[in-house]
């Protein structure tokens, strides 16, 4: 229902503590930089998936070209070991995931807001699904929709 059953990753990690050892193995295989480090929120199953895409500059014939790691995190208290020591390119992207989803990266050298103003957005995580922005109101809305803020 929540969409996570259909979405398959190259590697799905249930226990966040395993992430550094997996990352180390991948780095030794040749995946040397992080393209994207972000998360997807699944409020129905109370999960946040950390999604990491890594790729390689040095090994041309590596397959697959972009390797995807998914880590299952608890939505109430998402904590995961930081990847900065293994992939320094993850530094700014981890800071972004921290402010957008509230994921705490343990042992990150400098974990604070990067894009958002810390005064305006303390404790608010805009990319989580329960943070609702208004939708365009071109069509007439039903009464209930108006009451709930216009977004289902």
């Amino acid at each position, binding site marked *: 229902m929540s969409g996570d059953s259909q979405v398959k990753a190259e590697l799905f990690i249930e226990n966040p503590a395993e992430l550094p050892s997996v990352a180390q193995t991948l780095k030794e295989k040749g995946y040397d930089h992080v393209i994207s480090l972000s998360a997807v929120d699944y409020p129905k199953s109370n999960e946040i998936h950390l999604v990491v895409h890594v790729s390689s500059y040095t090994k041309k014939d590596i397959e697959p070209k972009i390797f995807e790691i998914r880590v299952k995190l608890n939505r109430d208290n998402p904590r995961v070991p930081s990847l900065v020591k293994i992939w320094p390119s993850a530094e700014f992207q981890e800071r972004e995931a921290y402010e957008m989803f509230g994921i705490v990266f343990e042992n990150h050298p400098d974990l604070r807001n990067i894009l*958002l*103003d810390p005064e*305006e957005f303390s404790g608010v995580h*805009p990319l989580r699904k329960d*943070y609702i*922005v*208004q*939708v*365009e109101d071109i069509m007439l809305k039903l009464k209930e929709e108006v009451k709930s803020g216009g977004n289902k």
Partner: protein
Amino acid sequence: MDIAGVAERSIKKILKTLMKPFSPMIDWATKYSIWPVHFTTSCCGCEFAASYGPRLDTERLGSLPFTHVRNTNAIIIEGTITKKMAKALKVVYEQMPAPKFVVAMGACAIDGGIFHNSYNIVKPRDILPIEVYIPGCPPRPEAVTNAVRTLQKRMQTLRLASKQALEG
């Protein structure tokens, strides 16, 4: 007692009264020296830069983008203003000497445009008095040139510059 302050204020008052008959001249002079501060806020900056480039050369109207806030008298808000940027915008505006003018460029600076429901934007008209709006997303560089001319016309007919300089 702040004697120096009182003296300064009274001298300013006398100067302002003396300058009253010359107010058309103030308007005329300011009209040909609109110097927008170098404050590229968002993507409309591309078209702003193009309009001051050689193809359109808005500089020929006496308008020159300049870096130092204290030497400028206009802000062209180029696109979206975020909450973080709004604070800087306010500081930059307050640093400018009067008379000063604000031009809002692009749909985002008017009413949010495509980002109207974003959680991180501020509508410039809520924080600054805006003189001229430039519609478009992004506006063509010709529209920027036209906005400078519109501002000049308004200055001449509505006496914007002398009002700010002598009464504000």
